[in-house]
């Protein structure tokens, strides 16, 4: 008997309704009922609050692994994993000095699955940072930031900042030596504008550095106030911001016409598999009045076959696969490598070397010379510069192509070589011969703030990219060169900061050479 037939009144009807209740419940859950046909699936996507961030149909170019590497989905998956594990960890975590440390010890040792959960949380957070960075590189190299996607690139910048903020605020929570001294470094970087205000002697009047540090820590030193602040940021404020930005980010993908693809993408795609050949199995019932106000060439009413396939299931399998792959990587790493937990935080025993989280070690390498230049000036310029890219590069050629634009892969290759050579050369000088402070001990700090390995490196990269702009007569060429150089610089500085810096931030070929070991 169909679900739709009327049931008789009275007891018999009640029994009949009770029998049908489970199926009706399932039916009622999804607005358009069980998706059987392609059109039904499209409706399903359209009518589902979670799925409707996707377009109902997806271009086949977007589904190629090479197009995106699934990095965005992996980043999202990692975020979801941290979200779930993080909420579970919150059941046991106590945000108060010492109690925090002991609660982490308890999570590690006696909370059922606690150790595993914490490991997953930590690994997923790292995967997220890595994949967000790679995702940014992918978008850049495929020119996917161009009109009409400029603003989504800017949202992406904000997401990157929020991701790093989430990771950094989480760093303090275990309240161990690692956390305490990493955050102390972070707080001192926040205070570093004093380097400039001190130099021009106006700190007693205008002290943005001290204010920033106070806002961050709620006190002069990392203590219980800082811990509760970082906790609140980590579990509430930043996740809310991230979720909000994510919603806009995804929605804009759809509204900006899906993923970027080359103009001739349709021609370059091989013929689709017969089974997946996209056909409308029914004439469209919907009017596209709503879709008509969407920018771009969408709403192919009556256009019939094109190179799109229904998102369900084609896209969703890809997304599910990326998600499960992320889960697998995280749980696998968590089995083998525990999240670090050092001694209880002790303000009297500084860690030496005290290191920030790994993704900030490149900056810390620069901070060793000047906290302001390395911690605020250079990252500030880099972020503003990245944000400006889509507004400066208004070219058309190469959109959707890997290393698209004048010069292409060749230019990127040479830029990588140049970028590596420059950063290695400057670091070699700084490590081998020291810097201005070692040569002229009396040199004013302002001079070093202005001229240090970081700023010199930036200038070299900047000049190089200007030269590229002129040589290729293309902003995109300059951007390709500059971005590649910055990646090279980030990579080398991070590696040096992570593996080759020991006590007192001295250079060592390996930790086994550290004194006292």
């Amino acid at each position, binding site marked *: 008997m169909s679900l739709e037939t009327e049931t008789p009144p009275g007891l018999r009807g009640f029994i009949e309704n009770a029998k049908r209740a489970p199926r009706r419940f399932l039916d009622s859950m999804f607005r358009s009922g069980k998706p059987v046909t392609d059109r039904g699936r499209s409706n399903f996507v359209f009518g589902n609050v979670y799925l409707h961030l996707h377009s109902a149909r997806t271009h086949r170019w977007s589904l190629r692994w090479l197009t995106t590497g699934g990095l965005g989905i992996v980043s999202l998956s990692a975020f979801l994993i941290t979200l779930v594990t993080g909420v579970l960890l919150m059941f046991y975590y106590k945000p108060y000095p010492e109690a925090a440390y002991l609660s982490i010890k308890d999570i590690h*040792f006696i909370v059922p*699955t606690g150790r595993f959960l914490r490991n997953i949380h930590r690994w997923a957070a790292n995967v997220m940072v890595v994949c967000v960075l790679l995702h940014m590189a992918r978008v850049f190299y495929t020119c996917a930031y161009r009109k009409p996607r400029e603003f989504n690139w800017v949202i992406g910048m904000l997401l990157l900042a929020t991701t790093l903020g989430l990771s950094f605020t989480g760093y303090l929570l275990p309240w161990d030596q690692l956390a305490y001294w990493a955050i102390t470094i972070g707080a001192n970087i926040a205070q570093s504008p004093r380097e400039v205000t001190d130099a021009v002697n106006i700190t007693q009047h205008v002290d943005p550095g001290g204010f920033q540090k106070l806002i961050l820590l709620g006190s002069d030193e990392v203590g219980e106030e800082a811990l509760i602040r970082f906790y609140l940021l980590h579990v509430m404020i930043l996740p809310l911001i991230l979720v909000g930005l994510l919603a806009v980010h995804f929605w804009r993908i759809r509204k900006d016409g899906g993923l970027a693809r080359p103009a001739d993408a349709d021609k370059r795609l091989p013929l689709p598999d017969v089974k997946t050949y996209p056909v409308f199995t029914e004439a469209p019932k919907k009017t596209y009045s709503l879709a008509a106000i969407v920018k771009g060439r969408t709403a192919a009413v009556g256009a019939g076959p094109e190179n799109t396939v229904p998102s369900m299931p084609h896209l969703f*399998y890809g997304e599910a696969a*990326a998600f499960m792959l992320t889960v697998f990587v995280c749980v696998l790493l*968590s*089995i083998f490598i525990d999240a670090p937990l050092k*001694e209880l935080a002790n303000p009297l025993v500084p860690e030496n070397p005290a290191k920030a989280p790994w993704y900030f070690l490149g900056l810390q390498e620069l901070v060793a010379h000047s906290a302001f230049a390395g911690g605020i000036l250079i990252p500030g310029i880099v972020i503003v510069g990245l944000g400006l890219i889509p507004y400066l590069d208004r070219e058309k050629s190469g959109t959707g192509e890997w290393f698209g634009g004048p010069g292409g892969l060749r230019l990127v290759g040479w830029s990588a070589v140049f970028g590596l050579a420059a950063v290695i050369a400057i670091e070699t000088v700084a490590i081998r011969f020291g810097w201005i402070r070692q040569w002229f001990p009396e040199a004013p700090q302002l001079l070093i703030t202005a001229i240090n390995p970081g700023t010199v490196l930036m200038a070299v990269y900047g000049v190089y990219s200007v030269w590229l702009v002129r040589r290729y007569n293309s902003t995109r060429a300059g951007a390709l060169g500059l971005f590649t150089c910055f990646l090279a610089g980030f990579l080398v500085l991070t590696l040096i900061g992570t593996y080759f810096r020991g006590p007192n931030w001295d250079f060592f070929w390996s930790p086994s050479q550290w004194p*006292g070991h």
Partner: protein
Amino acid sequence: MRANKHLLLWSSAGSLAVLMWAAFSENVLADWRQAQAHVADRLPAGADFEVHLRQIVVPARHTADRCVSCHVGMAPGESGLEGDRIYGKHRPVVHDPAEMGCTVCHGGQGRATTKADAHGDVPHWPEPMIPVRFAAAGCGTCHSHVAVPNLDRLARGSALMDRYDCYSCHRVDGKGGTLRPGGAGGGEGPDLSGVGAHGIPADWYENHLAARGKGTGSLPWKTSFGEVPAADRAAIDSFLQSRIGAPKLADAKSLFNSLGCRGCHKVNGVGGDDGPDLSRAGQRDPGLTSFKGVAGEHSIANWHAEHLRSPAAVVPGSMMPEFGLRNDEIDRVVLYLLSLRRTTAPEALWPRDRMRALRLGEREFATDGSTLYGTFCAACHGARGQGMRYAGGQPFPAIGNPDFLAVASDDFLVAGVTHGRPGRRMPAWGEKEGGLRPGEIGALVGFLRTLGDGAKPEPDPKPARWVKADPEAGRKLFADNCAACHGNDGEGGEGLALNNRMLLQYATDTYLVESIRRGRAGTTMPSFGRGSTVRRALAPDEIEALVAFLRTWEEKK
């Protein structure tokens, strides 16, 4: 899509496998579960034993000790495997583990549930377990302030206990209080093994006398108890004060108080400044300790042992001498060093000895002259005041020398100890510097007199400065006779430094004249009043000229 489906399938399968492994290893392979399974297997059938996590929580100390999850026999109310060292009951001790927890005495990581983590043999755990053979050091967590005499004094107290037949009624560290022939009596008096921790009643002697006078009739009162002279009572008191139920620890501290380590090292605010403060030597963080040059295991106990054997090999540039201690002595000193733990427990949990020491100003060393000398002076001046000389260093004066004591007045000795010799190794021991009180310095000087068989100068009627002679004549005499040992400017060399401000300030002319005249038999300082085969005797006016010359350094300063 096909590839995506495969990826989805295999990564899901992989994740599932990893999760299952995680569940298995957590629920079956966990160290504490394995330990409890081991116990359950060996218990007789029907024994009431449940596999679950056990812990001893002591809220006041903020500890949750899960040690008993493996050492189940030591959990409150359980007996584990009968007689097993690991899984059986804790051996009877003064404190009930159920009430105190484990880590407070043993160290280690109470919250951990895996063996390596719990025992603290992992990076980033600052307080690994105290090795079992040094377990008595754990008492030092709270009881680091027990007053302990030096070895001589300890042995004397113990011998006196024997001589006065105290053991016929009392039991101390398993000795005494036994049945007498015929099976009569035994243990009439309380066991005194832990009496030091509770405090010895000040009136015990009077009470004993009164009890005997009342004639309770029992045999030992008549045969065993008699009058005890005050000096002997003090020695017995001193011995008993160190009885806190941890004879090994008291013994170790007694050795420490005989070697004179505090001459250079401060412990709890009292001691010299040449070496590092040892107040928390037992709590060194292995992670912050360099084990370069330490042979054997990288534990703090072994670090201390190797360091005592050869200080400079472990701490490059160390000025600490090699004392040539025997292995058993090293073990005992290490035990004492490990006991210097001083955790920050709330005051309400302090034992009496700590409260008395830190709040009432009592000493954590016996304050008789002999112990004070052993504690603060012996390392440099020798156990019997014979003077010392360590490889590569300058000699330390023989202050037990009878010739010295025969010319040095009490005032001179007290001033020397109190103010030290600025610029030299001898620190000032006054209350503000080294931390000794005037009465203690007096006791110390009293003990020095016993080293010289009571030698003591006659009261000196002359004023402190009576020499009137020509310093210029003395200058030549000094160059000829003294400079070789004491240095051209009296800065010291083989002989001690004569240009020292404090020495010249407190040395009377009589002292200087007599010292030169008599010399110091048994040391390199000859008698200049008498000649020898290679040197003529100095006339009294020549000695006075020398003293006048020495005084010129005093004016310069």
